[in-house]
Structures are given as structure tokens and as C-alpha cells.
């Protein structure tokens, strides 16, 4: 009843092309951001920051990166874990090799390394499509993880084979490392997700995004319109891997703190792919919702089963897998286009409510 766009007239194309053309949506997003940036850091405890919020933000950023490639440009990738590893290990080498380096610069350069690797593994995409491309990107996954495991230089010859996030400051506040405050890490992850979500949204509503979707929907027609397939696909690989690489660096520096290559194995790649499928392919909002679903739902289930029903932790874990699987199937049957589409439908219904048409 309150969600109506009646009376909101647009007099220019710029207003019509705004990300949130409806005033209520804009207010809602501003409220959510204000809550996330101000209220949450003041109220949440360390458990929430470390176990729930920061991983959610990191995975949301990863899903966003993969969604650029798979959801918008239509190239299936199972190399996400590998590209995250490139980001994480580059970030480690940069921050240990150049201790004075600004953290933002370190994150960006780590992203660039990942983008370069992504372009190399994206080259086969000109010739192979669909599932075959997915298999080809698996090569990236296994090769990269093997490489970081095998070559001691990447983990500074640490005998344990792990890399530990060095303590680094930004604006005089400790951001990475074990001693950094969880709230600071949360804010860092939140800022980066906000910035990249905005940049991604801008990209996909511009010419670049349209050429990605054109290649995804009908590559022959796209080519005849004058879109160069190789350049367009490689740009998608580069930008996607850039974002995924930064998310990998975040996973290492802001969330886990200390990682081995096992953290970036193929299970991670699959998880991220599930996030964007459940959340919604080709949707910025869907990436965030999918990450929320796969990160928050298991925790909520565990809390409910162990805390609520007094179950044993191990049996709760098994039950959690079953319930989660069932939920995934349920959501995919109800709406194959993911949670983002479900949200869109709900909003469309709400605009008319309480009238049916």
C-alpha cells in the first residue's frame, strides 16, 4: 500500500535509468546501508562479526565476481577457487614484500594479478562453450592450487605451508592480522562489497554489460551486430577474476587470517557457483542473496537444531545438510531464476497490493 510509484514522474532519461528508479527502493537501500555501516558495528558482538557477517560479505563479493562471468557473460567457470587463491597469495606476497604498501593498493594489485591469470584461462572460451568450458576452467582450479602448494616462494618457505595475514594498518587502524578488531575487518569487507556492487551494477547497465549479455543470449547475432566475441569474453574473464581475486584476498586477510591452499579447493568453486544459481544468475542483488542463503542458512539451522531442539552437534550437522539440500531444491523449483527473481516478483505484487491486478 505504501510501496507505490504513483506520482513519481520522470522527466529525463537519466532519471529513468537510475539503479533504483522508485523512491521507496532508494529509501530502503539507504536504510539498509545506514544500518550496516552504523548500527551493526555498534551493536554486534565478535562472534557475529567473525563467524557470520564477515564471511557473508566476502562470499557475497566472490559471488558478485563470478556472476559477472557466468550470470552476465554466460561463461561457466569452476576456477573460482583458483582465482581467489591468486588474489590471496598475491596479497600475501605484496604485504610481506612491501610492508609499507597501502592496503587498498595491495588489494587492487592482487586483483590485477588474478585478472591476468583469469584472462589466460579465459582464452579457451572462444572455442568451447557451456559444460566443456566449465571443465576447461577446472584446469585453472587444480593447476593454481597445485602451484601455490608446490612452489615455496609463494608462502615464503613457511615450513607449515600456511600463509598468515601480516598486521597492516590503514588510516592508523589495524585492518589485517590476528590483532585487528573484528568490527574493522567487517567494515573493510562491507565497504569493498558496497563499492564493487555499485561498480558492477554500473557496468552491466552500460554498453559493456549489454555486450556481455548479448554474447550470453545469442552469440551469433551479437557478432553480426559488431560485438567482438573474444574481446568481450576476455574482458568478462578479466573483470570477474579481478573481483574474485580481491574477494580471495579478503577471505585470507579479513576472514580466515591464516590459510593453506586447501581453503581454495574445488568445493569452494562449487559453493560459489551454487550461490549465484540460488541467488539469481545475472543479478547483483542475487549474488548477495545467494551468499546470504548459503552462509547464513547453515548457521541458522545449527542454532535452531542445537540451541532450539537440544540436538547433538554431529547429528545436527547431518540434518543441516539434508535440510539445506531440500531447501535448495525447493527454491529452484519455485523459482529457477533464483531468489532475486522471487524478490522482484514480491515487489511487483506489493505495488498492486491489496488489489490483485
Amino acid at each position, binding site marked *: 500500500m505504501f510501496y507505490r510509484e504513483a506520482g513519481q514522474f520522470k522527466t529525463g532519461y537519466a532519471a529513468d535509468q537510475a539503479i533504483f528508479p522508485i523512491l521507496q527502493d532508494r529509501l530502503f537501500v539507504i536504510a539498509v546501508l545506514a544500518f550496516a555501516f552504523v548500527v551493526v558495528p555498534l551493536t554486534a558482538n565478535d562472534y557475529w562479526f567473525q563467524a557470520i557477517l564477515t564471511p557473508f560479505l566476502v562470499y557475497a563479493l566472490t559471488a558478485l565476481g563470478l556472476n559477472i562471468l557466468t550470470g552476465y557473460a554466460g561463461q561457466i567457470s569452476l576456477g573460482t577457487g583458483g582465482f581467489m587463491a591468486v588474489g590471496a597469495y598475491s596479497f600475501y606476497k605484496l604485504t610481506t614484500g612491501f610492508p609499507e604498501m597501502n592496503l587498498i593498493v595491495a588489494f587492487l594489485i592482487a586483483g590485477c594479478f588474478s585478472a591476468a591469470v583469469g584472462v589466460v584461462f579465459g582464452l579457451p572460451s572462444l572455442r568451447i562453450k557451456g559444460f566443456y568450458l566449465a571443465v576447461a576452467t577446472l584446469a585453472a582450479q587444480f593447476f593454481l592450487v597445485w602451484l601455490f602448494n608446490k612452489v615455496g616462494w609463494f608462502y615464503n618457505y613457511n615450513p607449515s605451508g600456511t600463509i598468515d595475514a601480516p598486521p597492516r594498518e590503514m588510516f592508523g587502524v589495524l585492518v589485517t592480522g590476528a590483532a585487528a578488531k573484528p568490527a574493522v575487518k567487517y567494515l573493510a569487507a562491507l565497504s569493498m562489497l558496497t563499492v564493487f556492487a555499485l561498480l558492477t551494477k554500473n557496468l552491466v547497465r*552500460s554498453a559493456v554489460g549489454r555486450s556481455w549479455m548479448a554474447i550470453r543470449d545469442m552469440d551469433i547475432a551479437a557478432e553480426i551486430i559488431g*560485438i567482438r566475441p573474444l574481446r568481450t569474453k576476455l574482458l568478462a574473464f578479466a573483470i570477474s577474476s579481478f573481483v574474485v581475486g580481491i574477494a580471495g584476498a579478503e577471505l585470507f586477510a579479513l576472514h580466515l587470517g591464516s590459510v593453506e591452499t586447501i581453503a581454495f579447493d574445488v568445493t569452494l568453486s562449487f559453493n560459489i557457483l551454487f550461490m549465484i544459481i540460488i541467488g539469481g544468475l545475472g543479478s547483483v542483488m542475487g549474488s548477495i542473496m545467494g551468499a546470504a542463503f548459503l552462509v547464513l542458512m547453515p548457521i541458522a539451522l545449527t542454532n535452531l537444531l542445537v540451541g532450539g531442539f537440544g540436538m547433538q552437534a554431529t547429528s545436527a550437522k547431518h540434518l543441516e545438510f539434508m535440510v539445506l539440500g531440500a531447501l535448495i531444491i525447493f527454491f529452484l523449483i519455485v523459482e529457477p531464476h533464483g531468489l532475486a527473481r522471487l524478490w522482484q516478483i514480491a515487489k511487483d505484487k506489493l505495488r498492486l497490493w491489496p488489489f490483485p491486478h
Partner: protein
Amino acid sequence: MAANGLIPQKKEGGVLLKAEDISLSFGGVKALSNVSFEVHEHQVLAIIGPNGAGKSSMLNCINGFYHPQEGRITYKGVTRKQMKPHDAAAQGIARTFQNIALFKGMNTLDNIMTGRNLKMKRNFLLQALYLGPALKEELEHREFVENIIDFLEIEHIRKTPVGKLPYGLQKRVELGRALAAEPDMLLLDEPMAGMNLEEKQDMCRYILDVNDEFGTTIVLIEHDMGVVMDISDHVVVLDYGRKIADGPPEEVRTNQDVIDAYLGVSHD
């Protein structure tokens, strides 16, 4: 269009495209053999022929999607042996497809906006910021696209995903996407297939308007003889990959080879 007395006879320009001895085969199958014809500027040229005559293959050769094994294509005075679809698009050749080839996941507006792709020069970093020059460019092209939307009378479906549109409207959106590139030459592969009479009339009107107002040269493939005889200035007839007739509609209509091969009986 031919002779209703009200519309002055339009002037055709020089040769825009010249196909000489085009031969194309797929393995043992000869799709085209020694086909030659000319397209003049500002002309509406129809390519007709029975199914499998090689009409679509001919269009695919013109816009660089197939590479004929023999023969030359001279476009705007430049002779070429091979060409990439991208180059054809850059030189002002746009087309629509027999089976609609729209981008199903996007709405009407975005589909037509992709047609402007070659005209948009800002790099992706500026586009990511959506500020200054990139925003200005986006809005300029939006305005151009809105004119096309206005011309094709599809304002009401501007924001509708194209997959949800009825067939006739999808065809119209596809024409819009081709027009967005401001082509010098427009290739239409069965623009009226599967349409009812009213939709066909609308489509004919758009094609003639494009030809008249923008001076766009049009090469079209069509099976509806009424339409072909009505709107085209020149007709090329293919049969089994060979050209069997080439001339103004009245002439082709009475050509015995054409009647034998295709029309079967006279339409009078």
C-alpha cells in the same frame, strides 16, 4: 510501390554492392554456384526462391558470416574475398534473422541499445563509474534509440523482456536493433514470416519508410509474393543455388523459368 502515380519514382544511386560469381559449398553440397548480382543504393532488392535455394546463404556471405570459396564481393567500391561479421557491421551492414535472434534475457530497450554498440566509444572504466562522458554518451544513445522506438511504435513494450513478447513484436524489435546501427545496407531475412496480414502491412510500411526516410538500401528475402512484388524495386531469383532471373518485379513475374521453378502457376 511501383506505379500508383502519387509517389514519385525514386532515384536509385550507383552500385553499392556487387556480387560476382559467388560459389559456396559445404562439403559436397553446393549452396551457391556462380551467383552474380548488383545492389544499387537506395534500392529495395528482394531475393526469392524455393526452400533451400541458397537465399540465406547469400545474405550470410554478404555480411561476412560465410566465406564463399569463389567469387568476389565489392561493397562501397572495396573488393573483398573474406570479411569478419564485425567488419561488415562496422561498414554499415546490419541484418535481421529468419529465426528471431534477439537477446532473450534483455528488455526491448537494451536489445535496441546493443545495436548502438559500435557507436559507443567510452572504455569500461568510465562505464563502471557511470559518470561524466560515459553517462553523457549513454543518454545520447538512449535518445537515438527512443526515436527508433517511436518510429516502430513499440513505446509500450520498452521495458518488457523480449522473450515475453508476441512473435510480430519480436520481429519489430529485431528490426529496431538493426536500425539502431544506422546501417547503409539492411539485410532482412524473411521479415514477414509467420505474420498475419495486419502485421505484414505494418512491417511493409516500416521497411518502405526506412528506405524512403533514411535512404537505407534494403536486401530482403521473402516468401510472400504479394509483398515482394509490391515493395521491391528489383528481384533476384535463386533456385538450387543458381540465379535464374534478375530484374524488376513485373519482368520476373512473367519469366517462364521462374514460373516453372517457383511460382508454379501464374498469379493472375
